[in-house]
């Protein structure tokens, strides 16, 4: 799974967000390290929506100006895919450690 896609899923695991929130999450060092440019971000959103991993979230729509924004939430499929990817990544990290690829540690 491309890192951008996974990062969006990761950010949405916390709860529904709108696109700008996702972008901010991308800038936040605790949440992710991959910067999402405007055009790329929306392509990711369109792709994930089309493949059914995320969906528009009507309930989360805010008040006033915010009401116009589209919120996105993880679908059940999306959650399962993200979990599967996490498991895969864990395996990858374990393998990397065994091959002494983890920086800073012996």
């Amino acid at each position, binding site marked *: 799974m491309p890192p951008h896609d996974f990062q969006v899923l990761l950010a949405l695991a916390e709860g529904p967000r709108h*696109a*700008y929130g996702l972008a901010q999450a991308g800038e936040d060092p605790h949440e992710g390290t991959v910067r999402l*440019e*405007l055009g*790329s971000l*929306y392509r990711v959103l*369109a792709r994930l929506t089309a*493949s059914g991993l995320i969906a528009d979230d009507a309930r989360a729509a805010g008040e006033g100006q915010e009401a116009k*924004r*589209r919120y996105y939430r993880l679908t059940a499929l999306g959650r399962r895919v993200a979990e599967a990817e996490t498991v895969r990544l864990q395996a990858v990290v374990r393998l990397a450690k065994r091959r002494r690829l983890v920086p800073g540690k012996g």
Partner: protein
Amino acid sequence: MFRWLLRAFPRRFRDAYGDDMSADFSRRLDAARSAGRLPAIAFWLRTGANLITSGLAERRRSSFIVAVPGANAPQPAHQLKKRGRLMSGWTQDLRFALRRLRHERGYAAFVALTLALGIGANVAVFSVVDGVLWRSLPFYQADRLIGVWGRFLPESGFDFPQFVLSNPEYFDYRMENRTMADVGAWLQSTATLGGPGENPERVEAAVATPSLFSVLGARPLLGRVINETDPPPGPSSVVVLSHSLWQSRFGGREDILTQRLLVNGTSRVIVGVMPPDFDFPEGARFWVPLVITSSVLQQRQSHGTRAIARLKDGVTIEAARQEMTVLMNGWRERYPKIHAGHFLYLNPLMDDIVGDVRPALKVVAAATAFLLLIVCANVASLALARAERRGRESAIRAALGSGRWRLVRLAAVENGLLAIVGGSIGVVLASVAVSWLRSSEGIGVPRLQTIAIDWRVWLFAAGASLLAACLLGALPAMRATAVRLAPALRLDTRTSTGAGRTWLRRSLVVVEVALAILLVTGATLMVRSFARLLAVDAGFRTEGVLLGSVSLPSASYQTDAHVNAFLDSALERLNALAGVRRATLSTNLPVVGGIGVWDFQIDGRPAPGPGQPAWNAAPTFAAPGYFETVGMTLVRGRFFTTDDRATSEPVALISEAFQRKYFPGEDPIGRRIRVQGNDKNAWAQIVGLVADVRDQNLQTEPRPLYFMLHSQTPLLIQGSMRQVTFALRTDGDPMALAASLRGAIREIDPALPVSPIRTFDDGVARTLAQRRFTALILSMFAVFGLGLGVLGVYGVLAYTVAERTQEIGLRRALGAPAGRVLQLVLSQGLTPVAVGIVLGIGATLSARSVLETQLFGISPTDAPTYVMVAAGVLVAAALACLIPARRALRVSPLVALRDL
């Protein structure tokens, strides 16, 4: 801006996410702005690039997706064969494009020819700019060659920003400098070759130092060049021939070394022949040694030598200039009288040669580039209209499974074909233009022989064609990818997006009109400036005068008596020729040439001391009849008469500028002046005052002039007084007298060739050639550009009217008066024109400093010109609008409503 960038994405994507993206964009932009200007710029660049790339990627992707609503993971169709699909079928496309273009011959021919003219003009101008300005001079390491010049500031008594050197100045600089590998010098002159019966001819020549050849890095083809041991003029003096003289006079024979040649009546030994590409100074047919003797080194104030230096390896011109400053400080201390306000300076040789034409060529090059832009905008507009006409065809193709990429590619192949054909015709046109330019002497641009259509020009032509193909293909391609199947497939002629569709073509009209305004205003300013130059009262008349020059060799015309006897009998014969109304002679003729500025003294007035401005003005040594022949106007007193002879009381005339400067508020008639330098010179009494004459060129203000009789003046400076031009005034065609002029002189001295022979008109026209040429080229471009612009206006409006036929019909049916409809159509057509006019005027104003260098007697912001051009363009555009507007008025409500 952002909205525009969003257009990179497919429409469906924009509809879904466009609003959110804009909102996000402004929040991100605000964040970036608050971080400072640089981050904001970086953000713009980053985001812009990202939007375009991801937008195009999205278009690519969506064109392969077979959309299955509700499916979880749509598969890109034929993903595995993607590469093969992208590249396959080129030949098929090519065949297909050819077939389509054959069906639309009119369109194809128009586009190809317009492109051909645009590209051809650019290729021709590029080859000129490349050959004249960019290509290095044909010398070894030519960029290290530096011209050495003198400058007189007004405090020296003269005011010459660029002047030739005196021999001692050259000699001292060559000895004292440490930054130049060597310095060479030469004097340009005209000399007579051969004796009686030896086919005498008058040719350009140079008196050159041996170092001139080493500075230029020139080697002889045969024999040797001039060297340090060559003696001064005498029995054993030498001459080096140019390749052309060797060919024309000696048939290229190899055994000519040690043969002798008569130069100005003196026999010289031929010691060498130069190769064909050596042409320095330009036009010189042979070279004789410039020998600097100790007596020559006393004449520090006798200026006539040109010098050129070669920088030592690793030395920059700045270093050489700094050294020059130091040297000049020393000279000022050693020669305080001479070097106060007078010093030498350095100027790269290339600038010496092409510096004058550079601004003009820049203007022409810019105009040509603008012309190509207009051409592209026009053709793109046509291509858009065509793409829209074919919208249904494309839609059917798309519906039948043709990928969008495939559709774009088909359009690209078509445009590429048109551009290649247009570009090729353009190169042919350009090579015709270039060969014409090379053969025409009369355009006043140096180095024309360097111009050639070579690989650089081909490369440029290919680049220009490619650019044209991209410009003309880009917009229709964007359209093609945005084809929406359903509405296009309906047999419905109404379109819901009519207004949106024409905005692109309207912006193209804005661009075209703006550029056309720029071109037309520039051209109009040039033409008006040229007209003012021709209309200027120069103080003389050129029509009906034939000029022919001779050089009197010192060998056969040793004394004043010899010279006077020859000139008297020449004038006698010339005056007796049939068809000649009056014949005269002179050392100078206005504009076409003469001797420089000489000092003089005024009787009864102490000469100016050191540090005071010297008295100097341009002298003319002429025969009686000079003023009448040249058409100068007498203000007071009298002209020279035939009673003024060598033996009578010396007389002089002065110009009004001379009087204003040296006899302000006094009556100059009766005062006496004489040429300074030789006390044998007689005082000449001023007998007349002539109206001012622009004697340097038509655009320069008149300067002080004085006139003396040739026969009453001793041969002051050999070269100057021995170069005499005969002037014949006739009622008929002056050139018809050329043969009799040549014959009359040959009868007196068979060894004296008359050359060049030309009309006064022609001589003056040559000095205007470059301006005439620039004005002509710009006018041609302007007419062409304006035509295309008007065509563009017409095309867009015609299209809009056709599209709105039903709407107009409906309005008419509901009772809208004709005037209303006309107003509606015209306002739609003329709005982009008005915007274009405003932008074009702004662009022209911002180019005013460039234009100013090319103008005479008219300001680059001349308001009447701008108003005239704007009004002209507006009227032309309105006329173009009237045709579709009339069609709109003729729309029958019945017909329009039936089709509804």
